[in-house]
Every structure is written in structure tokens, then in C-alpha cells.
């Protein structure tokens, strides 16, 4: 699979409160509705102008803080193609996987791109093309890829229990 999209670029330690504000978590249960408030307390431009297929490039510890899955759902429903970060906070890492939102760990791309640049990701080759350069990224760990191949955690569990 290949995707191509415009970059939204952020720094280190972006927390899930600014990705999806706590005040909406009690009242918004509709997934498409969640997408409207994505990154509201971080970047009003993103909240207004992000398009399906766009790609987030961030620093280390993306998604730290609260365990709310809405922080992954709002980006998935917004159509974000992938998040590339130096590292992910562990609870958010699980939530992105569980929502089928592709996440890529890379320390090289941050220096190569700016907001609005176009980036291409070839998931099969494990390669990002940005600013005329190609960067390799590691595949998911084998265990995680197994879950992804089954369609995610829930389909995997249902399959293992003979429910699917």
C-alpha cells in the first residue's frame, strides 16, 4: 500500500488532551463528530483545514497523557493517513493500532519536512519519500503485524474464541 499526503508538523510530548479535549469525551460518542475537534487545543489551523490523506510528523512521545481512545479515533475519522513520530507514548500506541491508524517510528524525517510538504509512504517497502530523499522505517514487530493482519485486536480475539 502507498499513500501520499501533506505534512502537519509538531514537536515533542504532544498530549492526548490537546489531541482530543477532555471536555468532549463525555458528550460526543459519534466517531465522525469527534473528527471535527481533532487537535483543537494544539493547532486551530489543523482543526479547520486538515484533509483526508494528510500525514502527521511529530517528535518524541506523541500521544502522552490520558488513555482516551478518542485521541486516535478523531485522527482516524479525520482521514489522517499515518502518524510518523520519533516515538509514541505506549497507551496511545495501542489505541492507534486498535483503531487501524498507521503509525511509523522514524527519527530522520523531522529534519527533512516542513508543514505543507508532500510525503509519500510505501508501507510494503517500508519507505518514506520526502524532499527527494528516501527513508527506511522498521515494520511493526511480528506479534503486532499478526494482529494487524487479522484486522486488529478485536477481530483477532473473536477469531481466537471461534466467534468470527
Amino acid at each position: 500500500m502507498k499513500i501520499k499526503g501533506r505534512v502537519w508538523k509538531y514537536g515533542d510530548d504532544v498530549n492526548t488532551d490537546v489531541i482530543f479535549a477532555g471536555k468532549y469525551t463525555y458528550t460526543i460518542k459519534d466517531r465522525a463528530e469527534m473528527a471535527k475537534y481533532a487537535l483543537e487545543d494544539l493547532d486551530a489551523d489543523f482543526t479547520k483545514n486538515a484533509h483526508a490523506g494528510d500525514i502527521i510528523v511529530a517528535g518524541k512521545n506523541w500521544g502522552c497523557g490520558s488513555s482516551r481512545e478518542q485521541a486516535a479515533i478523531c485522527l482516524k475519522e479525520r482521514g489522517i493517513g499515518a502518524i510518523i513520530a520519533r516515538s509514541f507514548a505506549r497507551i496511545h500506541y495501542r489505541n492507534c493500532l486498535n483503531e487501524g491508524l498507521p503509525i511509523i517510528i522514524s527519527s530522520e524525517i523531522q529534519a527533512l519536512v516542513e508543514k505543507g510538504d508532500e510525503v509519500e509512504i510505501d508501507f510494503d517497502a517500508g519507505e518514506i519519500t520526502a524532499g527527494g530523499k528516501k527513508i527506511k522505517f522498521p515494520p511493526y514487530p511480528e506479534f503486532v503485524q499478526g494482529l494487524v493482519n487479522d484486522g486488529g485486536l478485536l477481530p483477532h480475539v473473536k477469531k481466537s474464541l471461534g466467534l468470527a
Partner: protein
Amino acid sequence: MGKTMIMKIMERAAHKEVHVGERVWCDIDWSTARDFGGANCTLQFDEITEKQGRVWDSDKIAFTFDLQAPSHSEKVSNNQKIIREFAKRQGIKHVFDINHGIGQHVLLENGLVKPGDVILGTDSHMNLLGGVAAFATGVGNTDIAASWLSGTNWFRVPETMKIEATGEFQCGVSMRDFLTRLVGDLGAGGLDFLAVEFAGDAIERSTLAERITLCSMVTEMSGKIGLILPNGPVLEWLAGRAGPEVRSRVASIAPDADAPYIETRKYDVSKLEPLASCPDAPDNVKTVREIAGTPVDQVHIGSCSNGRFEDIAAAFAVLEKSGFKVSPSVRTIITPATNEVMRRCASEGLIEKFLDAGIVFTNPTCALCTAEHYGALPGGDVGCSTTNRNFIGKVGKGSHTYLLSPMTAMATAVKGVITDPRDIIC
């Protein structure tokens, strides 16, 4: 090579030998959800099972109503109702409704948590239960819903860092200050994917409340779990609540002498002074002396990190030395972690004195950790709090928060500006 505590916990839950770095399926002892996120879990479970599904074990699921207790709006009330109806339909009896307090603390006080347990919850501070050597972690609704189907979930066996704390705290300094030092030193992502074992004589002497403070804030360094092996009075208390099995569990998960640690950090807590996490991140750490004199609008003492009786009593001692008066320019709010804590505050006469001083003493709840409940700050206000996060906008758009120890928070409430508690009590 020996084994760390988290390796032994995961071996018990996975029924096999585990190795650092591998991913293993673990049996879940408790899969919990609170009013925050709980409705999403139940709706997702019903959706994937077409409303026909039964949970794997209704005696291993608990609901805690703590974030919006009591509910402040019709929408929240409807969310809470969804959870109550699901629990009834599934025969889930462990429903701790709005009259109990903060979920992890309530589970602990009710004797439902044992060392070595594997526990999931929709609260990123579940890992405060590491204070009694349980492996508890916050997760999203999909992880909860999946565990309700199978009674299992997967985890990476983490590397472990050892943090040794020795010495005694000086007057006016507390475990919260040590924790703030750690967050400042390690940074917001400093423990990402890691387990931590806290050891050393300062830890061995510490109270349950102090252990909870320390382990709850591992989340603010993105850590997986902070673990402290129960000993002394904490072990006695826990065995009294959760039963004699606690003792054999402790023995079975004690780390080996040659357990592998990726790093050992040593601290002498007697060298610490009062510290603060400054706006707008827990790892933006300064000494209270550096920021003393900063005017504040509101002080809040409470939360899953510092809402135990001992925390409130430490604040009380500062108030007592100040003639039981807080500054009229500051709104001061105290929130006990649980009903049990609140009752003790009442029976020991603390609440009456707090009320006399002009302090708002609330029911037990997490409420002041969110902008969507009472105590929210208006734009431009400066708050001081013993909660665990001061991310921008968290308790009100355009407001800023300093995170402090209960003693520093009360000293600040008394003076109306950020104040080193040593100026009052030492």
C-alpha cells in the same frame, strides 16, 4: 539471569516463562472502566457481539463512577445510565457508583487488589496500583472490550529501571517533591514503555499514600508501571483488606538479586527541597523558592495522586500553623480520594476546621482534573494543584496551573501567592 518484578507478574499471568522485549498474552484479574470512557466500552462490546455477548467473567469486571460524580449534565447522566444498565444486564456486581470515590483507591480499599494482579482500566493513572505491586495500566475502550470477551490482553515485557531512594525528607518536603524531581530529571517521555522498581530505605519506610503518589506519576513520564513491593505496615494493611494470599503473592513476585535493570538511579531525598511543575507541563520543574510570590487564583488539593488522608492531613498541618485562615483572594478546594478518606477527615475534625477557614471541601471525585466539572478555571487564571497534569487547557482554556505538594499548595492558599511551606511550618 534473575527476573524483575514485572517479569514475575507477567509469568504468573501468562502461565509461561517470559523474556524482556517479547509480547505475551496475560490473563486479566480485573478489567475496569469508569464513567469516563466506560460508556464507550459497553457500547463497543454490545456492537461487536450484536448485543448477544456475555462478558468472560462478571466477577472480574468493575465500574467506578469517579470523574463526573455526581453528574453535572444530562449528557453525562445518560452516559452513566448506559453503564449501569450494561452492568445489570451482564450481572456485574462491582459497580461503585457516584458515592464512592476515585476508582483505583476504591478497589484498593475494598480489598480487591493483590500484589501481582494484572488490571486494566480506562484511566491512565491505573498504574498507581503499582504502589501495592499490582500491574495496572490505563488502556482505551477497544482494549477493554477485547478483554471483556476473552479475559486476556497482550503486553510487551518491559525493561525495568531501578530507582533507589535513601534518606529522610526534611521539614516541608514530601514524596511529591521527590516525584517532581524525577519527572524533571527524566522528562515527559523518560520512562516510555519501561517498568520501574522503587527501592531503598526511603521507600521501605513510606506510607501507602506516599507509594500511591510515586506510582501514579509514572504516567507523566509515559512509564508502563512503577512497582513497590509491600512491606511493613503497608503489607499488614493490605493483608487485612485483601486477605492472607497477599503475603504469598509478595514472596512470589519479589525481584531476584540478579534481576536485569537497564539503569539504576540513586537519590538522597534528604537533599530535596519543595519543587513545582510549572505551566504547562509536569516536567517543567523549578524550586518553589524560584517561583515564590507568584499570585494565584485557585488552589486545589486532592486527586488520585495526592488525595489520601495523609495528604490532606499534611495540608491541614500547614493551615493549623497559619491560624486556620486562607487568603480571601484565593478559592481553595479540597477533594478527598474516597468516601473512607472523607469519613476520616470528618471524624478527626479536619473538615470543620477547613470549612471555618473558608475552604470548599467536596465529595470524593476526580472532578478537578478536568475542565468539565466543578472548579474549572476561567481564561487567564492561575491555579495551583496537587493533581498530576498541568497541560494547557486541561482545567480551563487559557488558564495555567502549577503542580505542587499538599504542603506547598496549602502554604500558597494561606498567603495568596506561591509560598514555600518551610516559611510556615519549619
